[in-house]
């Protein structure tokens, strides 16, 4: 039983991880919690659902994923233009990004609700069999795919941010956009790149969540809080920390729910979180830098 629970925990953790990474990219670089991410996921879920349904026979799954990623990119650009660009130009404090993202989260969810209602739309299943068994263990096919995808995305992102020139530019802009301009970096473009990455991740998550949980306006937001928690517990400034924290969160939640109960788990999870931050305030992967006066 413990083994099956572990498998299930890792599966849900993989979904948290996918969201946490999308969240952490923006958080680690722009230093604000992008609450609009959840809304973007929902929007992409809807778009890919209607895309899938527009063709008969439906296009192959990866085409839908690709299409959704492109749409995520478009939505991210749109939000950036309408919401974040001016904040950036005016050099306003980070907190305004956060606020803007909260507002966009509300807006997207409302628009989806008004136009599509709160009923859910079912994505046709992608795989012939939902689950496969190894021994007595049951695996969910989709979860394995999601886990693989999030690991691949993570590795690609970590590589890009730490090893490439554009990654270096991204980090520089995050620290000080003005000084970056003096290095010849077009800081506006770089920030847009960050949002595009987040948008692509939202697009991919949108399809996966849609397939997994159905398509409805709050499908993204309902998962986002967990991604938020994971990305922060994982350690500020660390993408890999986010993925570990997401997996840990999934596992702990699974075991707590099984042995104690779902409602109680929320309470205990909060206690664990508090204790964890108390013991390790820098998060799983973060490092503490002493402030210099």
């Amino acid at each position, binding site marked *: 039983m413990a083994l099956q629970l572990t498998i299930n925990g890792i599966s849900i953790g993989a979904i948290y991880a996918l969201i946490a990474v999308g969240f952490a990219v923006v958080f680690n670089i722009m230093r604000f919690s992008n609450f609009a991410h959840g809304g973007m996921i929902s929007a992409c879920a809807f778009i890919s659902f209607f895309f899938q349904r527009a063709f008969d026979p439906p296009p192959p799954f990866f085409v839908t994923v690709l299409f959704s990623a492109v749409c995520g990119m478009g939505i991210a650009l749109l939000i950036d233009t309408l919401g974040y660009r001016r904040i950036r130009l005016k050099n306003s404090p980070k907190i305004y990004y956060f606020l803007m993202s909260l507002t966009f989260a509300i807006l997207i969810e409302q628009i989806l609700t008004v136009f599509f209602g709160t009923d859910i739309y079912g994505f046709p299943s992608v795989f012939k069999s939902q689950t496969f068994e190894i021994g007595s263990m049951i695996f969910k096919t989709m979860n394995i795919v999601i886990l693989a995808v999030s690991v691949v995305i993570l590795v690609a992102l970590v590589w890009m941010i730490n090893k490439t020139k554009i990654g270096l530019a991204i980090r520089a802009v995050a620290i000080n956009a003005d000084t970056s301009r003096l290095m010849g970096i077009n800081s506006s473009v770089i920030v847009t790149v960050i949002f595009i990455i987040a948008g692509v991740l939202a697009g991919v998550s949108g399809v996966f969540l849609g397939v997994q949980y159905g398509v409805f306006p709050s499908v993204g937001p309902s998962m986002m809080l967990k991604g938020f928690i994971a990305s922060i517990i994982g350690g500020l400034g660390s993408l890999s920390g986010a993925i570990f924290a997401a997996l840990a969160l999934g596992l702990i939640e699974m075991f707590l729910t099984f042995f104690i109960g779902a409602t109680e788990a929320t309470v205990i999870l909060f206690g664990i979180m508090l204790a964890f931050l108390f013991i390790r305030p820098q998060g799983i992967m973060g490092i503490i830098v*002493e*402030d*210099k*006066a």
Partner: protein
Amino acid sequence: MTEQILKTHNLSKAFGGVCAVKDFNMEINAGRIRGIIGPNGAGKTTIFNLLSRIYKEDEGTIEFAGQDVTSKSQIEVARMGLSRTFQNTRLFVGLNVLDNVKVALDHDGKYSLFSALFKLPFRNKQERMIKEKAMSCLELLNLDEFAKLSPSNLSYGYQRRVEIARALANDPKVLMLDEPAAGLNPEETSMLMDFIKDIQAKYPNLAILVIEHRMELIMNLCDHIYVQDSGLTIAEGTPAEIQSNPKVLAAYLGEEE
């Protein structure tokens, strides 16, 4: 009268492999001005950070006003009367110049949260006193005309002055200045020098510790100088001794023109 106010014994601090301060011994008496000089990265600012308890030392002790303060926090030593300025100006941009100075007096403002919330007469009286004190401090530095301005609208030189005014407001026992003349032109530097002398005259019991790279200032003001290099004290003595010390010339001053 020459009471020892601040004293360190074998103070050391390393960052990773870098030894920023090693076995630093220093003492300063009330009413005196001492300087710390040394090449960049010698550990001067680190000494200030250790003294003001922003950093925790690896080894050694600090004695301040007759007490061992090694285990005390930044806040506690600040309240005991150890005041400082920063190498990069750190004014509170959300407050105007006057309020910046008031803040230095606020921690031991006598009125409670309760009387603040209800705006009791006692609070008003205290506020008036705080304001008077802050204003007199600004007047001393000829800053009174800027009282209502936001510090970000002041040029760098004036910002430095506001910092000093703020550090002085609370009648400290020790004032530590980290490169006060950085960014000032020679004219202003000499004004600053006069001004520090004024302070000394006005607060006869104040001990001042200065870090500076501007030799005219250090040599003019200080009666005793420590020279740091790579964490170690390579020389100490009066300005005249230091100026002619070959080690100091080689490591720090270079050939004087």
